[in-house]
């Protein structure tokens, strides 16, 4: 039995999260971000009523002041388990004075922290689906694949090689390190493929370097 997926799918629009706080986990956990209508049903029918409503994430106001470390607060005494007595345990927080009377300040962490790209890309679906922005790009990617007619759902064949699939996540950054956009990509696990079963011929359309130089040379001559 073959169920070909119709093009009409409903993708609930997630509100765009504040990029400054990607770690904010929304309150909802059930993930049914799309709804597929089997081919047997009328594609023009209104969407099914049981679509799960997803609450928008709570508004999260970030004030620039919270990112700064207040210098007036008393420095905390570290609580660790090892026996070594550090200077801070002796309540001595002054910078170490070197022999030539030069006072070394510790590097201002509050200033450097903003420059280092802190957000890392998730490595698996289970990490990514906790975040609204990753879910959103996955929904977009999935609807593009469905719209292109990339596959049709069939009941699993008895004797066939079935390859795995996984999501890959990328953070596209601008030249200054700021986040440009998030990208999710569905890939097939090609290493599950078997020759003469689901691979017959392969080819990599790469160019010979000499050809580029030859063509550039001709172009320059006739310019």
């Amino acid at each position: 039995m073959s169920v070909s997926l119709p093009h009409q799918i409903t993708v609930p629009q997630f509100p765009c999260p504040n990029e400054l706080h990607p770690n904010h986990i929304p309150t909802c956990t059930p993930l049914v971000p799309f709804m597929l209508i089997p081919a047997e049903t009328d594609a023009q029918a209104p969407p099914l009523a049981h679509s799960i409503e997803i609450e928008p994430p709570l508004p999260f106001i970030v004030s620039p002041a919270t990112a700064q470390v207040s210098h007036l607060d008393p420095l905390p005494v570290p609580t660790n388990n090892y026996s070594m007595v550090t200077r801070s345990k002796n309540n001595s927080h002054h910078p170490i004075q070197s022999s030539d009377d030069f006072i070394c300040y510790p590097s201002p962490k509050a200033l450097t922290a903003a420059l280092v790209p802190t957000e890392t890309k998730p490595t698996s679906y289970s990490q990514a689906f906790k975040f609204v922005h990753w879910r959103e790009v996955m929904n977009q990617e999935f609807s593009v694949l469905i719209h292109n007619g990339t596959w049709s759902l069939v009941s699993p064949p008895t004797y066939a090689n079935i390859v795995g699939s996984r999501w890959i996540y990328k953070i596209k950054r601008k030249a200054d390190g700021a986040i440009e956009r998030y990208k999710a990509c569905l890939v097939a696990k090609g290493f599950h493929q078997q020759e003469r079963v689901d691979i017959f011929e392969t080819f990599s359309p790469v160019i010979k370097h000499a050809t580029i130089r030859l063509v550039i040379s001709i172009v320059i001559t006739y310019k």
Partner: protein
Amino acid sequence: MQNAFLHGDLHENVFMIQPQGYVHPQYPNHVCKLHKSLYGLHQAPRSWFSKLSTKLLSLGFSESKVDTSLFVLQKFNSVIYILIHVDDILITGSSASVIDNIIHSLQTTFVVKDLGSLAYFLGVKALWCIDGIYLTQCNYIADLPKRRKMENAKPCTSPMASNCRLTSIDGTPFEDIRLYRNIVGSMQYLAFTRPDIASVVHKVSKFMHNPLDTHWLAVKRILRYLKHSISTALFITKTVNFTLQAFFHSDWAADRDDRRSVGAYCIYMGSNLISWSCKQQPTVARSGTEAEYKAIANAATELIWFKSILHELSLPP
């Protein structure tokens, strides 16, 4: 070209499990029978290329017989060349309006981003000047020493000492094999614009499988030379004719381990250097003359290839 590999049509029966998180609620045990290619499949590049070449053939292009990545269109006294490297496409020709038409008709099928005139292609920077073009990989070279925190190394004016003979036994095993392969692999990619390091890179490449610390010293010397010569570029200029000239050389029994010889050649078209190679010969030569003949044969093979590609572009060599 964006999302290139998703365009290709699959003719094989490939079944894939449903993507995680997007399992159909009514048919959780069904599998996806792929009609279009996906990233990661072995045949993805091939199906993409056949899709693109079908499109180009329908636009009137003809596929070159000598190089599959070259497509030529000759119509209304204008000639258009298209070079394809996976999803990077270089288009050039005698008529700007025809080029615009072609880009426009490609845009009807694919998502194409026009990056304007050639400035950056496959990591190679192109600098235009009045009488030619400079090809340089300076960004790539600048990035190389950072991987080994060698930014502060002293520049050096030559890539290797002339009496340096590397063997597979002199030295102790180098601990970071991955780094060695990484750096030497990058140097091989530099071969695009740097014929001057072809010979030394060939020498250090022979020990990729089991690098010793002596080999690593040689690699570091090359990195210092690259730092010295970072502004060196390959210059391609106007040529008066398309005469092909080949120069070759062989080094008899150059390899201290198995006494195989090294053959090298470089080929000029007019005044432009367009091809070079430095390679160990696959069989042992019993005399210097034998090694030379093998080197001639390799150079001649490349010359014949160039002759046929020029013939195809209807340019007399």
